[in-house]
């Protein structure tokens, strides 16, 4: 341990601690910009590039960036004397001098960290006039890159390369011309981008944002010829409240339903319903594959991998095209919902497919891409028309002038709004496989599950494993969240050394609660923990906690599908995967991107 003095306060820290963290221990928050951390997940970005966090260290000639300077024994640090404050202000003014001034119309306004710092430092004039760097805007199905707003903090690069190992983004070119871009300055759509949206979730400015479909939905809602139904993903209810000032982890399920009804959606349904449906199909497939394997059928591939997460699906299509027969063929809950809504439900209410619009509210940006995939269309019309993020919904509710906090709690509509606790926990890492275990156990053993909570499958470690005893049949379960962790498990599968029977994978750290479309957490990992706790709390208060006991699911099979894995199920609820090449095929030579 070493002892140092920060702003006249003595602090004792471990050797190797940065001044920034030492200061935090005595309650001093030094402002940062490029620095980013999700400490529970071991995620950190500290290039020491922006110099907003500089402090004065007695005896040193230059100010020191506190995020990368290690504390030393006997050090005397001042974090807010006039020299430090002047330096920070100058640094901010210089950064802003190469940043567009159109904050009024920026998607990130109100959530922008550069804007917050400018406010905090009372910047009222911009003395540095000069050239600003310009670069073309790039729009993909999910993500918009507007790198004129980029401040080169390189958080996105860290997320994309180190955490997700996707490798779509890197800093390219030099000096004033440098930008974060895909290889050869291709567009995102031609890159190995999975649309997981983690770059968007950490971008401090409006350089990376989601494609906004709010206006498409307003148009659909105002068209009297259309019946508009909406589905809400499990993780949305655990985070939406944050946008209205509620504490992280406050469940707003009832208010969210009321708001959607007030906005004019004809039916407010729940993706939790189709999560239960996913369990019926995926759980059945899991049991079939495991039983086949145990019976010695060599054509059966194990482990089986979950397939609910579209970022993950994109990732394995890009990086593991040789393993496309390993993931479950079950569609994601979003797409199962769309398929059932536009067949069974449309038939029930007597509405033509073309007059039924399905909207999804997702914690995810990859869902925007997923619903546009060709295999999820019938004669060119998609099963899910528009997917918007939790953030877009919050903005939409505000735009619609709805007093969210004072709304009464309302219930989802029937029949696609009924769900079990198993459907809810899809929002957390480990939740899908826990839900699958609840159902698969009872289907396999024919016995009632005594304890529905599988605590051994929960947690925040990037890779977890557990052995679940199915009455003598011991299943090795693997769980990974974050695509870098997924890659490790997939490399084992490819090498033939994987000992798992089933693996759940979620692209985003924490699972959907940490999705790229959720309210910005600004590096506060405790927010993710509170959302996760809220999801488990919602599960606990549900009267039904196993997917196969959901009465609407039972009815759907009785009236329409037959049984899990039936021919009808296969045509509506299962899909196939396509290899995506990572090879460089077409690119612009040199610097034509400018």
């Amino acid at each position, binding site marked *: 341990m070493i002892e140092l003095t920060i702003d006249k306060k003595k602090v004792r820290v471990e050797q190797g601690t940065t001044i920034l963290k030492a200061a935090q221990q005595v309650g001093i928050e030094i402002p940062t910009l490029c620095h980013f951390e999700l400490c529970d997940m071991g995620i950190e970005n500290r290039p020491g590039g922006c110099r907003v966090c500089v402090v004065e260290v007695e005896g040193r000639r230059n100010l020191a960036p506190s995020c990368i300077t290690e504390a030393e024994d006997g050090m005397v640090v001042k974090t807010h004397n006039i020299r430090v404050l002047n330096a920070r202000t100058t640094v901010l003014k210089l950064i802003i001098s190469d940043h567009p001034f159109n904050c009024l119309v920026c998607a990130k306004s109100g959530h922008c960290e550069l804007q917050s710092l400018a406010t905090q430092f009372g910047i009222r004039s911009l003395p540095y006039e000069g050239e600003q760097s310009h670069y073309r805007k790039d729009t993909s199905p999910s993500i918009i890159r507007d790198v004129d707003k980029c401040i080169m903090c390189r958080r996105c690069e860290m997320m994309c*390369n180190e955490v997700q190992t996707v490798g779509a983004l890197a*800093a390219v070119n030099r000096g004033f011309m440098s930008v974060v871009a895909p290889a050869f300055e291709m567009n995102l759509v031609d890159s190995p981008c999975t649309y997981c949206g983690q770059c968007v979730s950490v971008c401090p400015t409006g350089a990376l944002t989601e494609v906004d479909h709010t206006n498409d939905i307003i148009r659909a809602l105002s068209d009297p010829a259309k019946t508009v139904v909406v589905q809400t993903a499990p993780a949305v209810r655990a985070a939406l409240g944050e946008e209205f000032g509620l504490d992280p982890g406050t469940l707003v399920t009832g208010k969210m339903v009321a708001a959607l009804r007030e906005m004019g959606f004809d039916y407010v349904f729940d993706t939790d319903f189709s999560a239960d449906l996913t369990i019926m199909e995926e759980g059945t497939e899991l049991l079939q594959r495991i039983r086949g394997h145990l019976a010695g059928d060599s054509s059966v591939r194990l482990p089986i991998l979950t397939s609910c997460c579209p970022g993950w699906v994109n990732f394995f299509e890009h990086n593991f095209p040789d393993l496309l027969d390993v993931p479950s063929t079950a569609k994601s809950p979003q797409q199962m919902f769309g398929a059932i809504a536009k067949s069974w439900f449309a038939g029930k209410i007597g509405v033509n497919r073309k007059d039924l619009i399905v909207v999804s509210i997702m914690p995810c940006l990859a869902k925007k891409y997923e619903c546009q995939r060709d295999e999820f269309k019938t004669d060119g019309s998609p099963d899910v028309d528009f997917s918007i993020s939790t953030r877009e919904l919050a903005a939409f509710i505000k735009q619609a002038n709805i007093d969210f906090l004072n709304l009464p709690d309302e219930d989802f509509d029937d029949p696609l709004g009924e769900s079990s606790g198993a459907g809810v926990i899809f929002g957390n890492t480990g939740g899908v496989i826990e839900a699958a275990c609840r159902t698969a156990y009872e289907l396999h053993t024919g016995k009632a599950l005594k304890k529905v909570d599988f605590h051994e499958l929960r947690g925040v470690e990037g890779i977890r494993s557990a052995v679940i005893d199915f009455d003598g049949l011991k299943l090795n379960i693997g769980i990974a969240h974050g695509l870098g962790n997924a890659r490790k498990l997939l490399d084992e599968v490819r090498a033939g050394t994987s000992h798992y029977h089933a693996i759940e994978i979620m692209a985003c750290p924490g699972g959907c609660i940490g999705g790229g479309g959720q309210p910005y957490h600004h590096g506060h990992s405790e927010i993710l923990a509170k959302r996760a706790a809220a999801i488990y709390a919602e599960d606990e208060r549900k009267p039904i906690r196993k997917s196969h006991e959901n009465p609407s699911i039972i009815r759907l099979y009785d009236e329409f599908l037959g049984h899990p894995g039936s021919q009808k199920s296969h045509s509506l609820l299962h899909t196939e995967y396509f290899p995506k090449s990572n090879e*460089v095929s077409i690119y612009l*030579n040199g*610097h034509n991107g400018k």
Partner: protein
Amino acid sequence: MSQKLSIAAEVFAYMEDLAGTDGIAVKVNLSKEKIEKINQVCNAYHNDPGELINVLHETQHEFGYLPAEVQDVIAHNLHLSVAHVYGVVTFYSFFSMIPKGEHPVSICTGTACYVRGAEMVLEEFKKELHVKVGETTPDGRFSINCLRCVGACGLAPVVLVGEKVYGRVSPDGVKAILEEYRK
């Protein structure tokens, strides 16, 4: 024909095919031998991602430039993303994604050559060849680059064409130098 030139020829053949299309999209089909050559370079550096710059240096020495397909192979071998490799290639001005001409013209713009009028010599080459610094003529014969001091300041301003050194070059002499290679 040397290996360098054979690749350049492939590229130009392809560029010709694309004549009339927008932009200069260059696609290089790497032969097995060329991929093997890159693999050898990477192996010599134990496929260590920390050796990226050395690998790029040596590969550019072999090929004359670093087309996208070459970067792709290097990224794969070194377990790096192509975006990262491209980032390094575009950061250092030494690395080029444009093939050098058959006769690379290098004009020294170091201090001594500069004060003796290198700038005007450079302008004359640009005018004669209708290309900018770092570019190659459409026929693939000449490219222009600047360098900083070849250690022959007594001969300033100095120009190199390939390995051949020309001293005390004046703008008037540019045409004559190029004529030697235009035959």
